[in-house]
């Protein structure tokens, strides 16, 4: 059924349709509306046979999800930013134990300085935690990916993180098609665990594993993700058959066939990128874009195929590795091993800074002239940076940086965008 609703609410509906048996969560912006919505559905009885557990922290949220999943039920949680960091140890345990938990990450920056707005620093910090990571472009895709995520997670025995841009998607009202319970039931069978904590047939889970077997266990985790490279597109194809729309998969290309310049990005910014691609195509520029949905496993093969005939690739990232540069760029570079083309990393949208068509157009035109640095920070205000560096040079006891910058630029509430 078509609805005009908030992204968080659409996701809550998708989770409810997936018949979770345990939901445990701790509130943190911008994810909160999702679990609030689910809490209401459990309370008013519209989500049946599901226990909603208010926990005391994100660490507890993931720990309860691990316990529930190990006990053989479908478990779900959601978090953002510092919440994801606080649960980090348990995040690794969930994947190490092979438990098919599904978690939404409402993507938000990581402090300090504290910032509640969107970028990808949180989920990227967990990119090597052994979870599958899928990034949604729209609220429709966020809804669809959650239903697919349970299928993928339970088939492989591997947790799945569905990442959606905080505020930009979680708080956006747009049109979504909410499937029926019958459609979801036909696509997603009841959970049949591979492993279960059962007093009738006791097993150990989480044993100490020494050097004699640790490598093999870790290799098998890698092997599982490589199998996901086949499973993710297969599940997306089945989804399309059952629901009549394409969602998910490993990657999606947009007007890349004869493109000299291809822009690579994750998540909702792809919509804005496509608008710019269309506008530039209209002026004769040979440009296209590539949206990576599956960041873990990283689809080296299909990314290589999609990019190999381009002259240059611009990787637009909402995060970066401090002291190194791009994170997504590393994967893209691996995918292009042995292929000679110009590659640029652009860090954009940090802490909720708007990524505008105007800035992207200028950026892509500079890329076409190969006039970009290896690493560019989009719309970086160099005046502010110079001023602060100079201030710190002049005064040994220069005080806290972030606060000094805020004082320097004055009120921010009056700006648009």
């Amino acid at each position: 059924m078509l609805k005009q609703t908030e992204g968080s609410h659409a996701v809550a509906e998708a989770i409810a349709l997936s018949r979770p048996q345990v939901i445990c969560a701790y509130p943190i912006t911008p994810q909160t509306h999702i679990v609030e919505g689910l809490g209401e559905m459990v309370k008013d009885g519209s989500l049946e046979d599901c226990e909603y557990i208010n926990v005391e922290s994100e660490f507890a949220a993931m720990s309860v999800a691990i316990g529930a999943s190990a006990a053989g039920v479908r478990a779900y949680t959601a978090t953002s930013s510092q919440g994801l960091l606080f649960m980090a140890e348990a995040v690794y345990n969930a994947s190490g134990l092979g438990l098919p938990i599904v978690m939404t990450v409402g993507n938000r920056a990581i402090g300090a300085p504290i910032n509640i707005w969107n970028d990808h620093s949180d989920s990227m910090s967990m990119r090597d935690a052994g979870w599958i990571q899928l990034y949604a472009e729209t609220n429709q895709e966020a809804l669809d990916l959650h239903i697919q995520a349970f299928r993928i997670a339970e088939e492989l025995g591997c947790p799945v993180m569905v990442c959606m841009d905080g505020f930009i998607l979680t708080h956006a009202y747009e049109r979504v098609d909410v499937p029926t319970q019958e459609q979801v039931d036909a696509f997603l069978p009841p959970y049949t665990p591979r492993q279960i904590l059962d007093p009738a047939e006791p097993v150990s889970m989480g044993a100490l594993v020494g050097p004699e077997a640790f490598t093999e266990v870790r290799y098998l985790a890698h092997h599982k993700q490589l199998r996901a490279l086949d499973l993710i597109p297969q599940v997306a194809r089945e989804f399309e058959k059952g629901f009549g729309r394409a969602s998910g998969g490993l990657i999606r290309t947009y007007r890349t066939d004869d493109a000299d310049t291809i822009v690579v990005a994750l998540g909702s910014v792809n919509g804005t990128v496509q608008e710019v691609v269309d506008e530039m195509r209209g002026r004769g520029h040979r440009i296209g874009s590539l949206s990576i949905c599956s960041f873990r496993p990283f689809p080296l093969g299909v990314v290589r195929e999609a990019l190999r005939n381009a002259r240059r690739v611009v990787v637009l990232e909402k995060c970066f590795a401090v002291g190194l540069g791009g994170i997504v760029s590393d994967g893209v570079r691996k995918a292009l091993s042995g292929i000679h083309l110009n590659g640029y990393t652009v860090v954009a949208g940090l802490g909720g800074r708007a990524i505008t068509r105007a800035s992207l157009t200028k950026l892509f035109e500079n890329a076409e002239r190969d006039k970009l640095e290896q690493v560019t920070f989009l719309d970086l205000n160099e005046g502010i940076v110079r001023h602060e560096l100079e201030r710190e040079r002049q005064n040994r006891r220069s005080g806290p940086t972030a606060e000094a910058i805020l004082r320097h630029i004055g009120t921010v509430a009056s700006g648009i965008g």
Partner: protein
Amino acid sequence: MFQIRIHGRGGQGVVSGAEMLSVAAFLEGRHAQAFPSFGSERTGAPVMAFCRIDDKAIRLREPVLQPDALIVQDCTLLHQVDLFNGLQPGGQVLLNSNRSIEELGLAELTGGERRYRVSIIPATDLAQKHVGRPVPNAALLGGFAALSGQLRLESVVAAIREKFPKSIADKNIAAAEEAYALAMRAVEAVHA
């Protein structure tokens, strides 16, 4: 694509206003996107929300930088925020005030290259009358339906009904309907 930016203060319902506009457009079979500004959202602080309406799916995720219409819930923002930034020439401005354009010192906006179409609705007064609280949102949406030609009053009423429980919705709808009637009289006066 028609783009609307709503300015107000935290707590006045700026975000709900944009959401209801998007629901109203959806009910007319159109594509719509509403989202809050990513600025500070403390009670009383200047806040913004955005709404886009189009006949095809909306992919753009940037804030509304070149609005076709502005809705200003609180005229004290006129001297604090760069409200008119990016507003297209001939763009629509709907202000909540019980004063005239001249009294607000905004007559110059209607002339020159900008040619803004400025309308004023006493939305807080209407809210006090019908809802009993200074919540100007519904009245402004009713006024917007009359002035913009983008939405029908019935759709706005349905969106208000979707948002609030019945007793609160009824009061807000009464405010919206009176604002619509006031604005229609103003529109007809211009065309007469």
